[in-house]
């Protein structure tokens, strides 16, 4: 990576950082970034811009778009773009953790922190670390208190809290951590990604999940977690603290936990082990008569061990030319957005198994778009509703049926209080029309 630019949505640089020689800096700032900005202007929507783009002067622009900011890396050597993308993602995460909401303004206000972070994360173009736990040791977090003190008195409280580096064999956990009560919480969060056709049958279906933990333990505890069906996880990635050997040999997760929140593992469940019953059955139909378009959506509770399905939300994006939008539903609340992207959002707090199914009917008229935007001037595709998106959450249910069987503590003698929660959510759950 030669240079990193943070651009605003119109392609103007907010902040730049370079790791290359003078000539390349000027080339990047004068030629490549303007060329990239023009490229952004040339695509239909900002999000259509290809993340890896061959730029002039034998350079390559790699970018991601987050929160109305564009994080652009300029590369002039053969590197894995995925590495660059992951670094950019890491930068976004770290900045988010340090300065909160990312925007042009907050970046400019906190540029001192941003620069310190960037120089710790990337050294002469090679990535050093993106782990926020490590970064916190190197760059102090600008806390609200210190900022207030500084603004009032004009004096920083920097020097007395010298950051330090942890170079022990467990770099993720500092020595001598103490807690009054020793607690360890586990959240097994699973996401169902599914595409259904309009009749409600499954086109593609996928379950993935995270095991997130919150650790408040004294000293250097060594934990072993046993799962009920580790064999159905076909792709597992672990936090660096997990010992691979134990997993490979006996499928148990052995680790010395970091302090605080962390993601212990993410997993993906093998297709053939996936249950074919969904927590919600959704069908959607669109029709047209006498120029009135309608969309009918039916949501029926499915099977999830008798747990209620909560926070059900159906989003139906309508074509841009839609007007006179009417919604009929017996329960739940709905909102209609009529601005540039018309959309109907329907929320139902909770559905219990055995409940009667719920129905939603949307009707709308289509404004004549004058000359259609399709090339050639002929009648382009009639705009219609192509998909509905469904969100939901089921507490206490695990779609993959993975459970934490046991959590054992070694090396420390205190009693450990542990809690495990299961949640299944919708990932990208969509119904075609």
């Amino acid at each position, binding site marked *: 990576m030669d240079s990193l630019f943070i651009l605003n949505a119109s392609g103007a640089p907010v902040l730049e950082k370079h790791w290359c020689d003078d000539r390349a800096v000027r080339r990047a700032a004068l030629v490549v970034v303007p060329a990239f900005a023009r490229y952004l202007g040339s695509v239909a929507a900002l999000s259509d811009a290809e993340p890896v783009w061959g730029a002039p002067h034998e*350079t390559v622009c790699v970018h991601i778009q987050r929160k109305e900011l564009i994080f652009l890396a300029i590369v002039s050597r053969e590197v894995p773009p995925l590495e660059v*993308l992951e670094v950019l993602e890491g930068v976004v995460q770290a900045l988010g953790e340090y300065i909160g909401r990312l925007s042009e303004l907050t970046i400019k206000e906190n540029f001192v922190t941003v620069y310190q972070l960037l120089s710790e994360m990337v050294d002469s173009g090679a*990535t050093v670390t993106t782990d926020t736990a490590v970064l916190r040791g190197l760059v102090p977090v600008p806390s609200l208190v210190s900022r207030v003190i500084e603004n009032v008195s004009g004096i920083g409280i920097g020097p007395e809290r010298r*950051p330090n580096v942890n*170079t022990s064999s467990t770099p993720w956990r500092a020595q001598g951590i103490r807690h009054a009560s020793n607690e360890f919480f586990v959240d097994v969060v699973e996401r169902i990604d599914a595409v259904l056709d309009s009749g409600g049958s499954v086109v593609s279906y996928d379950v993935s999940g995270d095991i997130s933990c919150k650790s408040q333990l004294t000293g250097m505890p060594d934990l072993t977690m046993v799962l009920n069906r580790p064999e159905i996880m076909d792709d597992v990635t672990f936090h660096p603290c997990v010992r691979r050997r134990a997993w490979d040999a006996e499928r148990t997760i052995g680790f010395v936990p970091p302090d605080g929140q962390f993601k212990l593992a993410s997993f993906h469940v093998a297709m053939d082990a996936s249950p074919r019953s969904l927590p919600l059955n959704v069908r959607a139909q669109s029709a047209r008569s006498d120029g009135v378009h309608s969309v009918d959506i039916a949501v029926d509770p499915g099977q999830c061990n008798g747990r209620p399905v909560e926070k059900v939300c159906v989003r139906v994006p309508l074509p841009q030319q839609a007007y006179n939008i009417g919604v009929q539903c017996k329960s739940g609340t709905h909102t209609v957005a009529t601005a540039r992207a018309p959309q109907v959002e329907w929320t139902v707090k909770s559905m219990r198994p055995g409940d009667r199914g719920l129905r939603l009917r949307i009707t709308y008229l289509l404004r004549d778009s004058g000359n259609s935007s399709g090339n050639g001037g002929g009648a382009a595709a009639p705009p219609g509703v192509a998909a509905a*998106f469904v969100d939901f959450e089921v507490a206490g249910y695990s779609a993959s049926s993975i459970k934490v069987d046991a959590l054992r503590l070694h090396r420390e003698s205190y009693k450990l209080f542990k809690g495990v929660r299961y949640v299944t959510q919708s990932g990208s759950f969509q119904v075609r029309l």
Partner: protein
Amino acid sequence: MMNEVIQTSLARLQIMKAKALAALRKGENYELRTELNSEYKERRKEAVRRVIANMTVGKDVSGLFTDVLKNMHTDDLEIKKLIYLYLINYAKTQPDLVILAINTFVKDAEDSNPLLRALAIRTMGCLHVQEVLDYLCDPLRKCLADANPYVRKTAVMCVAKVYDLNRAVAEENGFVDAVRGALADSNAMVVANSVSALSEMSAMAGGRGDVWRLDTATVGTLLTAVNECAEWGQIAILEALAEYRPASEREAEGVCERVLARLQHANGSVVLTTVRLLLRYEQYVKRADLLAQFAKKMVPPLITLLASEPEIQYVALRNINLIPQRHPQLLSKEIRAFFCKYNDPIYVKYEKVDVLVRICSGSNVDALLNELKEYAKEVDVDFVRCAVQAIGRLTLRHEAAADKAVDVLVELLQLRADHVVQIAAVVLTRILRRYPRSQFAATVVQALCEHADCIREPDARAALVWALGEYSEHVAGAAGRLSGVADGLVEDDSGVQLALLGAVVKFFLKNPQQGQQLVVRVLKTATEKCANPDVRDRAYIYWRLLSADPAAAKTIALSERPPCRDDVPALPEPLLAELIAELGCVSSVLQKPARQFVYARTDRAGVPRGVAGANDCDDDDDDASAHPAAPGAAAIAADGEPELLIAL
């Protein structure tokens, strides 16, 4: 009295105006200079911040060099970091003045705080100024042997910077040797950074391997370190291992087995680099069962990448696109994972469809056709074209799919959506050309005729005309339709004109009585009135052929033609091998070899910068002409911005 008051206030106003103008003339830098020299610590601190803030938005604050330097002696780490940042930016413009900062650097490099020691050594390296080099050697030597691994790993990276600046100094002081020694360091992060530094130096030296060559013993230590260090270090080590040529088959197997666990990493780049290593090692490992096992292990992590952010998906898909060209069957069971979601960005959708066509096997072709039919009903005109074309490509690859594909396409024709009809017509005739005498010719031609009024675009009309000529026996009124097209012959697109010539000749040969009048009319119009020389020439040829020897004309015009082939742009084998060797890198994403876009830096270290720049351009021009780009690459180049010529 009144007058006097007015006079004084006017005078005051004038003074204020003069002051304001003076301030403007002196500018913000003047004000900052005063602040930087303030006696109050906090005001100086604020001033340094403002200087850096100005620097980041591209204002020139190099004039404040000495004033900023004065503030370098401070306990405040934040201010120190900011001033170091300022130095890195402006050292090259004021190399003589940098010497003033050396004392502080040397002192900081011996501080009790390891963070400060590392910061000092890193900054000195980043200054990239010859003048600093002499003062850098001693601290660097100490830091390379520091007790703290954080300092050691920073020092190792600094050696690469020294090497870039002056190879002789780096070699003579034994710095390069020290980095080689650091490969055996007890801390995995230091090992990883040593690998990065050595790879970088080796690239600067032209990759000839005199800086660094892996041997069996080092490979062993690297394999241990790769499990312990952070993700970025893992990538560096895996890349180095991928370049390594194992001494024996046994060793190659061992390396593969030990890096397999890296496939299960949350970082997608680690996964792809591991996949690259495994694919590269395929040439060294001979045991078929092991190879199959490795290949099988690659699949789930690649599928998992498809659940990440769209940008990562895109890069993953561009790489996955290459894998089936080497291992056609590997991903065919995972076809559903590549189905498009409605809200995928358009660039992800195109890649998914392309991968789908490549990985589809005969057994799941039906499911894929149903899926593509859904895509063809979407709103985005270009994506619909892509989906319908994919149906065609799929059918050309799998004969078993032909019946179903024709059903799907005819169904799409019946939607009578303008853009779908055009492309579906073209694709249908392509399928007929591939499977010529098959039972569905009648269905296809009849369906086309039924929707002939919607068929509007030149390509689609040429396809329709071709089908009418080829299968005139299957439709009623073919002569009438051809005659209708012939009416507008002169103004028509040349593709349609050529298709019509062929069609009327075939029609005439099959039905001499019915077709005679038509063929004479068309040939006459084409030779006399058409502007396009190709059309005229072909019309003359047909005319002479028909008048000289009708039997010969029959054998030529109605002969069996070779079936048309799958038009998926397959990459040529040498390029494919090169791209697979670079899997996960920029070249495999842009699908053109590195030498065509990478800024050549190999031989630059020793050459004065201006000269190097001129050479770069020449080299690249040669390369571009010598190596024809892949089809995909050409498209990218054409879409790209026109080259800007700004003298740098």
